[in-house]
């Protein structure tokens, strides 16, 4: 694997694509840009980038449509969702479709490059707000009969890790604070991501839609 990950930027706003390209220039290798769902699916198939930077809102189904169509031919493709919206329904929808992480467009260039690297390495990227959503969605208790202990509950450790991320801690600060290694933190976050994608707890998508929180 090369030192710099290859990425494709998918966003229907050209201005924004060039903005992201300028921000991550020198940190990652931008191999292509796509402005529509069809173009993105074709380009990703041709270029096979390490990571696809994906806008959530696009005409023609948005980021979720891109993930679904690419997953049919290349199920291993990694996606990192990038959005101006912090609405729970957007976050949950794109993560459940298969994105490895979710960051907002206000993120700095270095942070974005770090997130891309992490996704390339197979880890998950949680913004503080995504961590907050997960804690909220997995809060409280569910009736005994519905509990799939594997998927419907967070372990104490996962909860601690998420709370520190929600508090604005970097992964290495989380590791320091809990006296564990950064790799263990990443393993916990990946486990939470898997639960988020597979759990039906409280029917996550509906929960997110009902929250209707734009902030």
């Amino acid at each position, binding site marked *: 694997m090369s030192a710099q990950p290859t990425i494709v930027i998918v966003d229907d706003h050209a201005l924004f694509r060039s903005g992201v390209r300028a921000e991550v220039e020198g940190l990652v290798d931008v191999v292509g840009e796509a402005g529509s769902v069809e173009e993105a699916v074709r380009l990703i198939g041709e270029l096979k980038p390490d990571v696809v930077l994906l806008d959530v809102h696009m005409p023609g189904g948005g980021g979720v449509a891109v993930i679904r169509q690419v997953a049919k031919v290349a199920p291993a493709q990694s996606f990192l969702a990038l959005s101006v919206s912090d609405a729970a329904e957007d976050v949950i929808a794109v993560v459940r479709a298969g994105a490895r992480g979710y960051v907002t467009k206000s993120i700095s260039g270095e942070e974005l490059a770090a997130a891309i690297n992490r996704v390339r390495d197979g880890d998950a990227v949680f913004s503080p707000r995504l961590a907050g959503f997960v804690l909220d969605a997995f809060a409280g208790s569910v009736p005994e009969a519905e509990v799939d202990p594997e998927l419907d509950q967070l372990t104490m450790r996962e909860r601690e890790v998420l*709370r520190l991320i929600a508090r604005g801690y970097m992964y290495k600060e989380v590791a320091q604070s809990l006296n564990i290694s950064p790799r263990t933190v990443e393993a916990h976050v990946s486990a939470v991501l898997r639960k988020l994608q597979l759990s039906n707890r409280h029917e996550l998508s509906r929960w997110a839609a009902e929250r209707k*929180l734009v*902030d």
Partner: protein
Amino acid sequence: MAERGPWRRDTASGIAGGVIAGIARRADLDPTLLRVVFVVVVVVTGGLALAAYALAWLLMPALDGSRTVLATRIATRHPRRGWRLGAGVGLLTLSALLVFRELGIWWSDALVWPLVLAAAGAALLWSQSRARSQREAAARAEPAPLQPAPPEPQVAGEDRGARFIDLYRGGFGIALVIGAALLFLSQNDALGGARDAAFTAIVAIFALALILAPFIWQLGRNLAGERAERIRSQERADLAAHLHDSVLQTLTLMQKRADDPREVAALARRQERELRSWLAAGSRDASGDGFAAALRSAAEEVEDAHRVKIEVVAVGDCELEERAAAVVGAAREALTNAAKFASEGGPISVYAEVGSERIEAFVRDRGDGFDPDDVPSDRRGVSESIVGRMRRHGGAATISSVTGSGTEVALTIEREAP
């Protein structure tokens, strides 16, 4: 003193509906005397005068208002009002006819049902046209709001529903009146010769309806399309007005202040917040006065006052009771403190979690941090005020700082027992 103008009910000094008091006032008579006379009349007429009183109560406007009870009843927007009114007028007519019959003023029994039906039908039609003109007047009186109008589709639906009821009710009223006329004619045997002609006419009307139906349907669809288009263009106009008022102005301001990056960032941030809340209006749930909302608005105030960026993540929510308010207050101080001394390192983050037993909030900055033993005295004062405030309300605040990687203020308080 006698007054000029129409007869009005004097509801203030009246006993029942104020009819007699009103008449007395207008005619300059003693109301008590008039009441005695009324009672005598009631007894003599076997209660008929009571009906007259009721009628007068319906038709005379009150002294303070200009509308009659009847008009108010009709004007009130109530989906079932028209039906009730129709049935009521029908029954009133029936009872009046029975009274006449009892008194011996009578022509023919054949008159009863046609008259009742016709009265009910006419009342329905009348109430319908009144209700519609009221509604249109109301629509004219209220100009379309400039703020986002998410309930628009609902209004359209409601309007369509009201229109349907109007149509239905109108048709029913017409059918009642026509039925009454037919009944009257047939009872008088005036229909015999006309029956064939009527049959011909009905067949012709039916055929005509079949022919015209598609055109009328098309017309209706076009009207609905035009209406939808009008709503859309109204929304576009609202959006344009909003963008012009706020976004363009902010962009202009930002160009003027281009030499001051902090000011530009603050302007952009404030505009972003406004636009987001504008877009979210109507979809945001009504939890506008809880703990989470209070924390957010405190963060926004600090953002505005100190030109910094604050990210708020809140999990759970509760009412803003005394302890929750203490947390918000302490968090605000911590944020102000961070904004003043540690805003260079990156955004300040606030994380709040409302659990079933306690409320926790963390304010973290990415400034230089400090050595707790080596704190400037003004900053120590602020720290004390945070710790002191939490302690007074039975909670705790801890401030941890690492030189070079920022400071975190942790606030904890037990929730009040429910």
